[in-house]
C-alpha cells in the first residue's frame, strides 16, 4: 500500500476515537481528584495527571501509526509481535522492579513499562492469526483448541510468577471469548467450562490454609488480606454516598480522607462515582457500552476472519475489565487487581489499549478495500 487511499480517510471511524478520548478525559479529571487531596499541586503540576496525559499523547501517536498500517500486514507478523511481547514478559523477573509486593515493571529511566498489559493485546493478535488460518474455524473441536491453549498458557505461567493473578484471569477469559467467537463447539465449550468450574473448588479444598491465604494475597497483592473486606466496605460507602447527582468534583469525602484504597488505579471508579453520582456513572458506563457495541459492529462487518477476531478480542478485553472492575468496586465481585481501561492511572495499559482501538479503527476502514 504505497499510496494512501482516499477512501480510507472517508471511512475513518470517528465515533470510536471520540468515545475513547471522552473516557480518557474523564479518567484524567478523576486521577486529578484522587491525588489532589494529598499533593496540592493544581492540575497542570499534578505529576500523575501530567504523566497520564503524556501517555495518552504517546497512545494517540501509536494509534495513528497503527491506523496507517494495513492490519492484514499485521496478520503476517502476528506471531512475531506475540513473541516479542512474550520476551518482554520473560525478562521481567530478571530486570523488573518491584511494586506492591510483585515484580511487574521494567524500568527504563524516567518511565517503566508493564509488559503484562501489552501481552493482552498480543495474545488477541496471535489467536486471531491462528483461527484465521485454521481449517477448523467455524466448527472448532477440542483438538483444535490445543495450540490456542499453548498461546494462552505460556504468558499466563510467566505472569503468575510475578505474581499477578488478575491479569492471568483476564488473559484466560479473553482467550475463551475469542475461542467462543471462532466457533468452538458448544459441547466442548460447556465441557471446558464445567472442568474449570469443578477444578477450582476441588483444588481450593486441597490447598493448605497458608496456601489459600497465599492465593488470596495473589488475588489482591496490594492489599492486606485482612483489610480487603474493609476496603470493599469503604468503596461501597464511597459509591453509594454519591447518590443520584454526586458530591461534586473534588468534593468526595471518602476519597479525601483516604478511605478508598488504590484511589487512582484499581478503585478509581469509586472516586468517580462518589463525586458524580449515579448520573455520572451512568454516562461513563454508557460510553463504555457504546464503545463495546460499536466494536461488535466493526467485528460483524469485518471482511476477514483476522479482522473480525482481532476486533472481537479487543472488545472482550475492554468489556471484561470494565465489568469486573465495576463489579469489584461495588462489592459484587471479589477484589482482584484489575484496572478500568482508559480510566485508571497506568501508562502501559493506556497506550496499549489506545493502540488496540487503533486496530479496531483500522479494521473498520479497510472493510471496503477488498
Amino acid at each position, binding site marked *: 500500500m504505497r499510496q494512501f487511499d482516499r477512501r480510507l480517510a472517508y471511512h475513518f471511524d470517528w465515533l470510536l476515537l471520540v468515545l475513547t478520548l471522552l473516557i480518557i478525559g474523564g479518567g484524567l479529571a478523576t486521577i486529578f481528584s484522587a491525588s489532589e487531596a494529598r499533593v496540592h499541586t493544581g492540575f497542570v503540576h499534578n505529576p500523575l495527571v501530567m504523566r497520564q496525559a503524556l501517555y495518552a499523547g504517546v497512545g494517540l501517536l501509536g494509534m495513528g501509526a497503527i491506523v496507517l498500517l494495513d492490519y492484514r500486514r499485521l496478520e503476517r507478523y502476528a506471531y512475531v509481535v506475540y513473541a516479542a511481547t512474550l520476551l518482554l514478559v520473560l525478562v521481567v523477573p530478571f530486570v523488573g522492579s518491584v511494586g506492591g*509486593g510483585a515484580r511487574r515493571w521494567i524500568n527504563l529511566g524516567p518511565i517503566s513499562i508493564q509488559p503484562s498489559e501489552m501481552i493482552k493485546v498480543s495474545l488477541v493478535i496471535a489467536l486471531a492469526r491462528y483461527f484465521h*488460518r485454521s481449517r477448523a*474455524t*467455524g*466448527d472448532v473441536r477440542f483438538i483444535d483448541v490445543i495450540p490456542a491453549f499453548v498461546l494462552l498458557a505460556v504468558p499466563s505461567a510467566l505472569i503468575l510468577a510475578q505474581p499477578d493473578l488478575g491479569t492471568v484471569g483476564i488473559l484466560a477469559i479473553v482467550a475463551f*471469548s475469542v475461542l*467462543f*467467537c*471462532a*466457533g468452538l463447539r458448544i459441547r466442548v465449550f460447556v465441557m471446558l467450562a464445567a472442568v474449570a468450574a469443578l477444578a477450582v473448588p476441588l483444588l481450593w479444598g486441597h490447598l493448605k490454609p497458608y496456601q489459600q*491465604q497465599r492465593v488470596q494475597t495473589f488475588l489482591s497483592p496490594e492489599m*492486606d488480606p*485482612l*483489610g480487603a*473486606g*474493609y476496603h470493599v*466496605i*469503604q468503596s*461501597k*460507602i*464511597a*459509591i*453509594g*454516598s*454519591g*447518590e*443520584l447527582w454526586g458530591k461534586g468534583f473534588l468534593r468526595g*469525602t*471518602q476519597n479525601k*480522607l*483516604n*478511605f478508598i484504597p488504590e484511589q487512582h488505579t484499581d478503585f478509581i471508579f469509586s472516586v468517580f*462515582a*462518589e463525586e458524580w*453520582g*449515579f448520573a455520572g*456513572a*451512568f454516562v461513563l*458506563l454508557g460510553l*463504555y*457500552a457504546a464503545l*463495546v*457495541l460499536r466494536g*461488535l459492529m466493526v*467485528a460483524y462487518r*469485518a*471482511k*476477514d*476472519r*483476522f479482522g*473480525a477476531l482481532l476486533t*472481537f478480542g479487543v472488545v472482550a478485553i475492554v*468489556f471484561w475489565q470494565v*465489568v469486573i472492575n*465495576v*463489579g469489584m468496586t*461495588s*462489592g*459484587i465481585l471479589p477484589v482482584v487487581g484489575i484496572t478500568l481501561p482508559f480510566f485508571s492511572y497506568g501508562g502501559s495499559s493506556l497506550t496499549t489499549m489506545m493502540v488496540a482501538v487503533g486496530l479496531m479503527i483500522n479494521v473498520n476502514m479497510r472493510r471496503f478495500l*477488498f
Partner: protein
Amino acid sequence: MTSPLLGGRREMPNEFRRRLGFALALAVALFGLTFVRLWHLQVSSGDEYRSLSEHNRIRLKRVRATRGTIFDRNGDIIVDNRPSFDLVLVPEDAHDVPAVIAALTRLLGPEVGDLSATVAAARNRPAFEDVVLVRDLDWERIVKIETHQFELPGVSVQVGPRRTYPFGQMAAHLLGYVGEVSPQEREQRRGYHLGDLIGKAGAERYWEEYLRGVDGGQQVEVDAVGRKLRVLSEVDETPGNGLVLTIDRDLQQTAEAAMSDHDGAVVVLDVRTGAILAMVSRPAFDPNVFARGIRLAEWKALVDDKKRPLNSKAVQGTYPPGSTYKVVMAAAALEEGVITPFTTIFCGGGLFFGNRTFRCWRSQGHGSVNVHEALVRSCDVFFYQVGQRLGVDTIAEYSHRFGLGAATGIALEHESGGIIPSSAWKRQRFGEPWYPGETLSIAIGQGYVTTTPLQMASVMATIANGGIVYRPKFVKRVERTDGTTVLEEQPEVVRDAGFKKSTLLQIRDALSDVVNSKRGTGSNARLPGIEVGGKTGTAQASRAGGDKTSQKKWSREKRDHAWFIAFAPVESPEIALAVLAEHSGEHGGTAAAPIARKVLARYFGIPDGDEAALQRTAGFVPLHDQYGAAISLAALREPYSGDDHDHDR
C-alpha cells in the same frame, strides 16, 4: 467457504455472526446488571451510605499476633511475652488533635515524652488508623486515662503482647532482640505495618518468619469519640511458632556466672551433633531495653562502648588463637609425616632464625621434647621447628580442613571467618612475598592468624569426635503452640577432615595430660572423676612482650587474651568448649581454664568446690546422663572410612 478467487482472504463463517449476536446479548445483560447494582447502591440506599460517609465510623483494628515463645532444650521458657497496655490515638476520632494531645500531656505528665511529635510523624497515614503514643503504660496512668475518657475523644488503651526476656542479659547475643520495623525493612518484606515489631538480631531475626505469626483484626463500628460499639467481623490472630533451642539454660547460666567479671566468650558444643549447648559473650546487653523501645542515649552508650557489648565475641570477635593453635599444628605435622610421635626437638629457650631470636615462653627451655611433651608443656620452639618443616601453605591447608579461615555458617548475622594466612593470601593482601620468619609466628598462633571462639570450640569438637566438622546449630525444633513439630533441625556434617585415627588419639592423649599431668599447663581445669582434655593459650594482643604481673598496669587493649579449649570425657567425648578471656592480661591456664572447669563440672554434675555451685548442682541429674550415651571414636569413624574406600576405587 474460502473462495480460491479471493486468494488468502478468509471470510467469517456464518456461525460467527450468530455468536456475535450472543456476545451482544451478554454485553447488554451485564451492562444492565451493572446499572442495576449502581442504582441499588446510589439511589435506593444512597442516603444510608451518605450518612455512613459523613460519620465514617467503621474502623479496622489490628490484633497483633503473639510472637512465638523461645524454649531451651528442656522446654524451659527463655523468651516470652507479657501483656502491655499501649496508649493509642485515632486522629480522625479526636477531631481536635492538638487539644487532645495537650489534655493528655497535662494528665500524664512530661515523662511520657513529646506526644505531638509522635502524632506528627504519622501525618501521612490515613487519619482513621491507630497511632501508638505511649507503649507499656503503668497502672496509675491507665486509670487516669480510663476516668477521663470523655475528655479524650479518639484516645484508647489497647492491650498487646510485649516481648520479654526473663533472664535479662543471658545469651543475649544468641537470642537477639526485636524492634520496630524500619522503612527499609517494610520495603523489602511484605505485610509489615508501621509500628510492627520485627526481629533485629540473633535468633529473633533469623527465625523471624516462624516466630512472627499472623496478625488478626476486627472491623468495628465506633461512636463519635472512637469507642467500640460493636464488632462487625473478626479474623483471629495466629500466634507465632515456638522455637526450641539446643541451649541448656542451666549450663548457659553456669557459663555466664563463671565468666564473673571477665570479658570475652564461652562456646560449648555437643561434639556428636555440632549443637550449641551454651554460648556466652561478655559484656552483654539487656534485650528487654530494645523490646520497650530503646532511647537514643541508651543506644549511643551501647554503640560507643569500647568493649562493644552489641557484638557477639563468640562469632564476630577474631583473636589470635595463641598456643591453642598448636593442636592444629600437631595434627598437620603428624598427618603430613614431618614428625613422628617419637621425633624429639631440643628447646633451649629460643630459636635463632633469620636475624633474630624467636623465644620460647619458658626462657630456660624445655630440653628435648616430643610432640606429646610439646603440647603438654606448650613448648614454642618445638612448634617453630614443626612450622618450618610444614611451610605456611600446608599449615593453611590443615587449618581450612578444621574449618578455620571461613565462617562456620551458624545462623547468626555478621559471623567472622577469621584469617588463615598463606603465601597467596599475603601476595593478594599486601603485594609482598611470604617471609619464612613469619611462618614461625603462625606456628604458635600469632602473627596474621585469627580465629573466633566458636571456630576454636569446633576445632576441639573435631579432634574429639573423630575428625568430623559439624555446622554449629542452636535451634533444635520449631513447633506450633499445640506442640506439634513444624521443622526439626538435623545435624549437618560440613566435612570429614579425614585425619588418621592414630593422629587423633595421639593428640587426645596429649591434651589429657595438659590437664591431668603435673607438668601440664591446664591443671586448673582438672575434675575429679571425669578425664578432661584441653589446651591453654595466651595470645598477645600487642607486640610488646612482658610478664603477666606487669600487664595489670597496661591499658586494657594491650593486655594478652587468655584461651582454654577443652573436651570431655577423653575416652568417649561428649562436649567441647572454648573459653576466651579477652584482654585479661593473664595466662590461659589461670584465667580461662577455671571457667572451663566450672562449665564442665556443671555438665557432669560434679561439685567443683565453689559453694554456690555446690548448691546449684545439688539434686540435679548430670546433664550428660540426659543426653544419652556418647558415641565412641571408632563408631564415628566407620561410615566415613567406608566412603574413602569408594574413592580409592
